């Protein structure tokens, strides 16, 4: 049967038979890199048009509808515009850091792609601590934001960056704890293991209340971590004009923009993997016919379907809620989310030990 893992295996076999192992590795790396960049570009375009359409429909508008069929090429045109725009660096800025910051944001987003299982047995890097790797690397993101805010030499940028620092560092905690709840159930940090453990049911169904609580907390925390509304204080438009990227224009701004969407995609992919079974199809008990029909759908479709559902939920948040204030944001984390997720992880541990989950 046709699948991503088959193609990957065939390419690997052909390369191994043609080149020596070192060259094979190098060529495979290049192919992976090109694929990631391609995926990046494609996902960026899709997510931007998706965001614009979702917001338009929620706001009783039509949204982009001029470029291409139903306006689907709008984001392509926007990208083209951003590419040919002059990339300005303000006079008083720290030029090196100012230009470096968007690339760090981009590199972090790229690194995060490594452990994600896009389809059955299809992964860039089967890391045995995949989940830990994601939460570790994603916290580097804050450095690029701080760098951008500091080097812009703009008070708005600086305030945005400082807010962002406080925000990401605190929400990392509850995101980590809610991930941990699933890790406790599974007993593994490896992404393929976690997915395989959900063959008989996704964790959000199997894990009862702790999994549901963990899922909700995870959604809130990752929304905050990716700096999206209602937690977009780093770029709070009505307060700080555009926050840390006030001074950025052209392609450098586009990189920040793209990195934000990539981060959204990655956290949603992680959420889908942990709670919704990754590429695992939806199965119900012993309904053989139904389960077979579900198996027929390719695993990559399952993965992207779930991920895009979560992305939609996060967009839905954004276009519904007003923004929090900085002290309320931190109160929410330290007074509500963190105690609840700590309590939740105890509950999850208890359930895992007693074997109460299915």
């Amino acid at each position, binding site marked *: 049967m046709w699948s991503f893992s088959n193609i990957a295996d065939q390419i690997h076999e052909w390369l191994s038979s043609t080149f020596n192992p070192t060259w094979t590795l190098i060529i495979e790396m290049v192919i992976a890199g090109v694929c990631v960049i391609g995926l990046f570009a494609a996902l960026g375009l899709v997510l931007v048009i998706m965001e614009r359409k*979702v917001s338009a*429909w*929620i*706001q*009783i*508008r*039509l949204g982009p*509808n001029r470029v291409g069929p139903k306006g689907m090429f709008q984001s392509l045109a926007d990208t083209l515009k951003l590419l040919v725009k002059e990339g300005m660096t303000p006079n008083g800025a720290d030029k090196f850091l100012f230009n470096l910051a968007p690339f760090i944001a981009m590199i972090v987003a790229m690194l995060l792609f490594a452990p994600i299982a896009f389809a059955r047995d299809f992964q860039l890097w089967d890391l045995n601590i995949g989940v830990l790797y994601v939460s570790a690397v994603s916290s580097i993101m804050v450095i690029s934001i701080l760098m951008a805010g500091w080097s812009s030499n703009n008070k708005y940028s600086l305030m945005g960056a400082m807010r962002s620092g406080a925000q990401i560092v605190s929400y990392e905690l509850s995101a980590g704890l809610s991930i941990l709840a699933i890790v406790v159930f599974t007993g593994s940090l490896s992404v393929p293991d976690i997915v395989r453990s959900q063959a008989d049911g996704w964790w959000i169904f199997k894990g009862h209340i702790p999994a549901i609580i963990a899922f909700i907390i995870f959604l809130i925390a990752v929304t905050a971590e990716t700096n999206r509304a209602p937690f977009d204080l780093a770029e709070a438009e009505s307060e700080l004009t555009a926050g840390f990227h006030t001074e950025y224009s052209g392609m450098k701004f586009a990189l920040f923009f793209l990195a934000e969407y990539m981060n959204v995609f990655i956290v949603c992919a992680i959420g889908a993997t942990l709670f919704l079974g990754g590429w695992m199809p939806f199965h119900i008990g012993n309904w053989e016919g139904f389960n077979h029909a579900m198996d027929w759908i390719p695993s990559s479709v399952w993965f992207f379907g779930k991920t895009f559902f979560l992305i939609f939920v996060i967009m*839905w*948040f954004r*276009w*519904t*809620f007003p923004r929090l204030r900085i002290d309320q944001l931190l109160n929410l984390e330290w007074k*509500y989310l963190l105690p*609840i997720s700590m309590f939740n992880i105890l509950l999850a541990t208890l359930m895992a030990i007693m074997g109460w989950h299915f």
Partner: protein
Amino acid sequence: MFIVKYIKDIFGAVKSLSIGMKRTLYYFTHHKEIITQQYPDNKDTLVLPERFKGEVVMPHNENNEHRCTGCQACELACPNGTIKVIFKNDLTPEGKKKKAIDKLVYHLELCTMCNLCIEACPSDAIKMAQTFEHSVYDRSQLTKVLNNPGSKIMEGVE
């Protein structure tokens, strides 16, 4: 009790947020609620109310005749000096000299569409048109002469 209040707070918050999300989901799925008007596309079907104040025009009949007597009421009524009446001397059929308008100059760029000139006009010579796309590349194009070239005053209008 503290814990009860704490839990109640959380549930109240979640409930209020989910009500809002339900409302936005409704609009996300009900596309018939969309109110966008696609402006240049619907130009043919766009109907403006007959009272809409777009610009001042002077209607002429099929014989190229207007109703303006040149009484300057509009010029006096205008707060911005938008209208200037320029006179000439016409000869009546009996050979007498008669004062008539040569040009009624209208500066659209100064006009605020306040309708005071139309109210002031005693002979209904000018009215508001429903055009609204006034942008031009050169400001001088906005200075218009309202009466057609060679037009004269309608019979019986004093």
